[in-house]
């Protein structure tokens, strides 16, 4: 069985230029902030946003290259004490805070491969792409578990 057979095809997506305010408004009623793919023209997948990336909005953004620098202290941020201003809602855009290093899975991969990848990276969902790198859906660990239960007749 391939990933494309059980993945979710209806996915909420954002673009590079979506502002922080717009992003938060989409999820105003959600209890948990899901993984959101960032797409550009032709549905090309360019990044992902998770709630962890939201924490970057509390801080002035640092260049990617700083990640490779050794001996740096971790950023300590008390989110309750930062001085955020209203403009941040419009000034910070998805491109500033999204994750560019991410794992995506090909739509024709098997469920076993997807599950294996989830275990290796300790992640619970991945965006699914076609051969051209365009987003076609999302697959989560629950989708796979549910399918296994279904195959065994439990549901």
């Amino acid at each position, binding site marked *: 069985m391939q990933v494309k057979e059980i993945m979710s095809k209806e996915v909420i997506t954002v673009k590079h230029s979506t502002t922080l305010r717009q992003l938060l408004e989409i999820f105003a009623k959600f209890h948990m902030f899901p993984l959101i793919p960032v797409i550009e023209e032709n549905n090309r997948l360019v990044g992902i946003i998770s709630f962890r990336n939201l924490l970057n909005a509390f801080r002035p953004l*640092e260049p990617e*290259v700083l990640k490779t620098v050794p001996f740096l202290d971790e950023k300590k941020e008390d989110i309750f004490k930062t001085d955020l201003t209203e403009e941040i809602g419009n000034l910070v855009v998805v491109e500033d805070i999204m994750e560019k290093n991410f794992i995506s899975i090909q739509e024709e991969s098997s469920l076993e491969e997807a599950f294996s990848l989830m275990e290796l990276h300790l992640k619970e969902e991945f965006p699914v792409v076609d051969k051209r790198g365009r987003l076609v859906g999302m697959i989560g660990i629950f989708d796979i578990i549910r399918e296994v239960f279904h195959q065994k007749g439990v549901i």
Partner: protein
Amino acid sequence: MNTILGLGFILLAGLFSARLINKIRFPSVTAYLILGILIGPALFKLVPKGILDASGFISNIVLGIIAFGIGQNFSRDNFNRIGKPVMWISILEACGAWVLVTLVFLVILREPFYLSLLFGAIASATAPAATVMVIREYRAKGIFTDTLLGVVAIDDAWCLIIFAISLAISQTIYSHKLATFFLIKVFLDSILSIFGAFILGGIVAMALSYLSRYLHTQTELLIFTLGFVFLNIGVAIWLKLSVLLANMFLGTVLVNINKSSFKFFDALKTVDSPLFLLFFVLAGANLEIRILPKIGLIGLGYLIFRIVGKVTGASLGARISNASKSIKRYLGWGLVPQAGVALGCALIAKNDFPEVGSIVFTTIVATTVVYELIGPLCTKYALRKAGEVMLEPH
């Protein structure tokens, strides 16, 4: 104190001192260094011999790991993102410090060439921790800040390359004990050590990438990555190749051949902090206080001319790349702090050059402490002059 008790003590004391020093707005590495000096043979003598003897061992491991991480910078995407000013400024400030310190030591202080070259190479390093801390504290924002961050981030890579070349040359000259040197022999031996490191790093990277398809869990990923990094370090030592370059090349080749290479680098981040703590404490503990009085002039010369080299080099780089006036005038002042990479290189020098190594190392530890103390002040000055301070802390 037995070795394991000593380790426990060092880790906990390190944690505690880092907390203390963070309160007065200095980075944790400064705390580790000072702790090491305090508890080492120089002062309170609390460090067990077993741990002291492992200094070279620990520093090879730590340097190997950070060189591996630094290798990531050389991906194709990254180079496109870096931009001309950061490239020019970082290369010229590193070379500026290298060349100026080497010349000053050779001509003014009349030290032998191989020793001057070592000091010059170490001078090219900048420690980002103190600079980044100041930038975060002042919520600095703008082009000056971005450029400064870019330069401090990539600077370690240039220093590693400069040091590897200088070390190869110095070792060749030293082992031949020649007053003048046979240029060709020195050149060839150095090239061999560097090229060999490249081949080693490349081969290990390919093996690592290929075999990683069989990994199933995070635990395996961590053990796998660590194992390969140690393997690389060990083979480099065995074949007398540059450990720093071999690991840097391992990182570089890996990031360019494997699409999800970030997982390897991220895996190491989970275990590197206690190693780094130990490294800095041991660096401080290796300070030989009895040598301190002898290095007065050398220390002063290094202290002053490293700054001069960096400030003028940065200024030149800024001019060539048409950077703003603030960057031309003040960026070099953000590059004053020196710590990890410099100490690591100095420790290597200490091991490889038994006679003069201690002088190099003690000078570097002493100057590092000074730089770490005045560094943040210089960075604050530079940021204020560039007008990019957003928040004055109370």
